[in-house]
C-alpha cells in the first residue's frame, strides 16, 4: 500500500489514487503524419520498464487531478511526484541505478 504525495493535497493513501499508465506520451500533432506502425506504437506499445518508471496517476478520490510519479517498479519506491506542467525531475545516480 503506497503512500503517495499528491502535488496538491500532500501525502495520501494509495487507495485514493488510480494509476493511469506511462507518462510523457504526447499525442502526435498530426496523426496522419504517422504510418500505421508508428500510430500503433503510439496507441499500444509501452516501455514497461523494470526499474524507474515515469507514470501518470490521478487523485480520483480526492482533488481529481492528474500528476506524474517516478516510481521504481521493482521496489515500488516512489522517487518523486510532480505536476503535469513541472519539469521532469532529475534523479540522483543512486536513484536511477536502484537494484532491479
Amino acid at each position: 500500500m503506497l503512500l503517495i504525495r499528491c502535488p496538491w493535497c500532500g501525502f495520501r493513501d494509495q487507495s485514493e489514487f488510480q494509476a493511469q499508465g506511462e507518462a510523457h506520451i504526447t499525442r502526435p500533432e498530426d496523426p496522419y503524419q504517422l504510418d500505421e506502425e508508428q500510430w500503433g506504437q503510439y496507441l499500444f506499445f509501452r516501455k514497461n520498464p523494470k526499474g524507474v518508471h515515469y507514470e501518470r496517476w490521478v487523485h480520483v478520490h480526492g482533488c481529481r487531478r492528474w500528476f506524474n510519479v517516478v516510481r521504481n517498479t521493482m521496489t515500488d519506491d516512489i522517487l518523486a511526484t510532480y505536476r503535469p506542467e513541472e519539469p521532469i525531475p532529475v534523479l540522483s545516480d543512486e536513484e536511477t541505478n536502484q537494484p532491479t
Partner: protein
Amino acid sequence: MKKQINRLEHDARLNRRKSIRFWFDNRAYVGYEGDTLASGLLANGIHLVGRSFKYHRPRGIYTAGSEEPNALVQLEENAFTEPNRRATEIEIYEGLIAHSQNCWPSRKFDFGALNSWFSRLLPAGFYYKTFMWPTSFWMTYEKYIRKLAGLGRSPTEPDPHFYDKTYAHCDVLIIGGGPAGIEAATAAGQSGCRVILADEKFEFGGMLLSENMLINGIPCHEWIDSKISKLRAMPNVKLLNRTTVTGYYDYNFLVANQRVNEHLGPRVTINSPKERLWKIRAKHVVMATGAIERPMVFADNDRPGIMLASAIRSYINRFSTLPGKNCVILTNNDSAYHAALDIADEGGQVSIIDIRTNPSGSMIESAVSRGIRIIKNHSITGVGYSRGLLRSIEIMELSEDGLNVIGKKEKLLCDLVGISGGWNPTIHLFSQSKGKLKFDQSNHCFLADQPSKNNSVILAGSCQATWFLKDCMQEGHAAGCEAAKRAGFSVDGASDEINTGQIEYGALRPLWILPGSHPIGQGKTKHFHELHNDATVGDIHLAVREGYESVEHLKRYTTTGMGTDQGKTSNLNALVALSEIRNLSIPDLGVTTFRPPYTPLSMGSIVGYDCGELFIQKRKTPIHPWHDQAHAVYEDVGDWKRPRYYSQGKETMHAAVQRECRQVRKTAGLLDASTLGKIDLQGKDTRWLLNMLYTNVWDKLEVGRCRYGLMLNEHGMIFDDGVTTRIAENHYHMTTTTGGAARVMSWIEEWLQTEWPDLEVYATSVTEQWAVASLNGPNAREILQELTDIPLDEESFPFMSMREGQVANIPARVFRISFTGELAYEINVPARHGLALWEQLIEVGRKFDICPYGTESMHVLRAEKGFIIVGQDTDGTVTPMDVGMDWIVSKKKQDFLGKRSFDRTDTSRSDRKQLVGLLTDDPQFILPEGAHVVSEVKSKPPMNMLGHITSSYMSPNIGRSIAIALLKDGFNLKGQTLNVALMNGNSQRVIVTDPVFLNV
C-alpha cells in the same frame, strides 16, 4: 466430570475464583478464567486433540501460542462454528464447545488412520505418480482424496456476527508486548508521540508470562502489571491486546486483527463486533516480536505428549498446569534447562537428554544440583504411545558426527517430552515488508538484514537474536527512543536500572534432525519436520532424490510450510535437512518468502462493514419511491436501480412491455431518465474540445440547440454516445450513457489535464444534480403545456432544442430530444424536485392516458426506430461506419479522437461486422439475443458464424418480432435469407434488412 489432574497449586495468571465449564468432543471439563482451551485440556489430562492432515495420526498440543501446528479444533457449532482454530489461542468461556478435527467416528478411533497403514505408499507427491489410468477415473479417485484432506468444516450458515474496521495513524507502532515491546512503548510514550502497542495474546508480557524470575527484585508478573498500568495511564498510548499484526506492506502500512470479544463466547456478543481490522499507517515501526522455540526432529516426534520445552514453561508458569508427571526434556542448548528446573520445582519427575557431548556451565550445574538426571549425547529413537497418552521413549547414544546412533537402546518411561532446538527470531513481518534476511551462522537462524527502503522499522529483543532479558529490555528502550526521535519528538534517553540476574548460556549443538535406529525415511518410524501437513524428513530425501531440490520445489513437493501455521516451527528444520542432504550451506539454499498474513485472517474481518447493504451502494433516483409504489421491477444498470417495467396485477414482463410500448406510441409514456450521465462543460474552449471528443462538427451549434454525438476511443471504436446542448455562449450540457458517465468524465479530464492543459474548459459531473423525466408520445405536448408557460409549438420550440423555464412551478431545462422517435421532452429539474415533477406529470397526464414505462420498453421503442444502444449493439470493437452512422463522422474535421485509427488495414476493411436488421420467417418467433447467424446450418457444430444478434424483441407497434445483428459484411447481405442456429439444434430463417423497422 474429571478432576483437573494436572493442575498445580499456584494461581499463575489464572483467576482461580472463576471456574469455567467447557466441552470438548461432547465431554465437559472445568478450567479457570485465564485458561486457553489447550491449557484447560492439559490440566484435565487430555493430550490427544485431533488427527493429522494426511496420515490421520493422533496429535496433541505442541506449543502454547500462535505457532501451533497440531492442536487445531472445530470451535463451536452451527452458525458459530469455525474450523482449524488453534487450541493454544482460544480463551475458554462458559459453555465453550469444541470438537476434534479430521477424524471419524472419533479422535481416538479414526477410520482415516487406515492411511497410516498405507503410509509407505503415500510418500510426498505420490498422487503425481498414480491415479492416471484409466483417464476418466481421476475424478473418482479425487473425490476420496478430497474427503480425506481438509481438516475442519466450513460453516454452512451465514455469519451471525459483524466485524468492525478502522484506520489508525501513529508515530510509533510497536509489535509485540513482551519485555522489549513494553520498554519501547514506555520510552516512546514518555516522549508524547502517538504510540500503538499491539500484542497477539490476551495479556501483555510476552515470554515473561511463561517465566517465574525476578526483575529488580519483584516477580516478573508483577513487573508486567505495573508497567502496563503505567502505559494505560498515558493518553497518547493505545494498548491493543488480542491484536495480531498480520500484514506489513509498503510505506509502513500494517494490518492488524483484533479479537474484540470472542473470549466472552459467541452467543452473548452478537451485538458488538466479533473482530476489528486495524489498517495502520505508522511513521515508524518497532518490531519486538520475540522468538519461537525451534523443535528437534526425531523418530515419531509427532506423538501427543511431545511439545516444545517453552510450551511446558508456559503451561506451568502462566497456566498453572504441569502436563505430565514424568517428564523428559530433549535439548541441544541451555535454555531448555529452565523447563526442567520448573518441572522439578513443581514436584514433577524430570530427566534431561542433552544431545551435546559434554554440556557444562551454570545451567547444567543447577540441574545437577537439583538431582536431575542428564543423559548426554543421546537421541530419541522411538516413542511409546497408546490410548491417548505418551508412555515411554527409547533412546540411543549418538555417533560422533551425530548422524547415527550407536550402542544399546534404553527405554525411559515418561508421559511428557519437552523439546528445544534453540530459538528462531520471529521475523515474518519483516520479511513480508520486503526486508532482506540474512542467515546468522553463530545463532543458526535467519535475522533481519536490510529493511526495505520505503519502510522505517527498528528491531528490538529476541527477534534479532538478543537472548538475555536485560539486553532485550535495553534494546526495547533504545528502539522506543529512536523511533520517537525519528518522529520528531524529544526523548530522555536514560533507561531505568534493570536487574534480572540472568545466567550465561553455553553454546548449542547445531543438530536438529536426530537419527533413528533406521536410516531416515526407512523403517516404521517417521521423522516429522512439519507436523501440520505431515511432511517428513524422508519426504525431503525423496524430493531431492527426484530433483525437487530448490527450496521452492521442496516446499511445493512436500507441502512443507503450506499449512495454517505457515511453517513457523518447521521451515528452518526443513532447510537444515535440505542443506545436509545437498551438502550446501543454508545461505546457499536461499529462503522462501514469508507471505501475509502472519496468522490466518478471517474473511469477515477483511470485509468489515462492506457487506450486505453496504457492499456496493445501490444508486436510486429521486423518483425511486414512486417506482416502488407503482410495482416497478428493477434492473441493475451499473450501480443504478432502474425500473425495467411496471407490472399491473399479475402481468408478466412480456405483457407489461407490450402494453407500455403500445401506449407510448398511442398516447404518452413517462420514463425516469435521471440516471443518464450529465456533465456540465464551461469555458471558452469547450467547443474546440467537443470537436475533438465527438466525430461530428460542433462549430455551428447555436445557443439553445442540441446535437447527438458519438464518442470514440483512440482506436476508433465507439465507447459512448449522448446529446450535448449549448446552454450559453461558453456553456454546454453533455449527456452520456448511464453506465458510461464516470468513464466519460475521466476521459474528458484526462485530455484536459494531461494533453491540453492550456484549454479553458471546466468539466463538472452533474448527474445527481438533475432529475430527468422523459415525456414521450403524441400527447406529450398537451401534457407538458398544462404545466408550463414555455411555448411548445413547433416553431418556437423545434426538435433538438432546449428551453429554460418553469415546469410545474419548478425551474427546469426542457430538451426536445427523443430516443423513441416520438414527440418527446426530457424535463430536467433540480434533483430534489424530481419526485414532485414526476407526480405532477403523472397526475396531469392521466387524462391524456399517460403510462410510466421502464428500460425494457425503452429498448423496444428505440429498436423499432433503429437507434443503437452503446454497449448492447456495440461492444468496443465497432466503428461508427460499422453501425451505418457514417453521416455523423465529419469528413471536414482534420482530427478528432479516434479518427486516425479508421485508416488502419483492419479498421478500413469493407467487410467488417456491420449492423443490420433481421426479420424471422415466423413473425411470432423472438430470436434469442446472443444467437448467431451462420453461413450454413449443419446437423451439429461447428458451424461458420457470420455474427450475432445484439437486440431482439417482440414489437407491438409493428406486430412482429424484430432483431438487430452485427454480421460480417452485413451491408452487402441485405435482402438475403440466412439462418440463425439455435442451441437446441433448431434454426430460424431470417431476412437481412435495414435496422430501422418503424418509419415515420
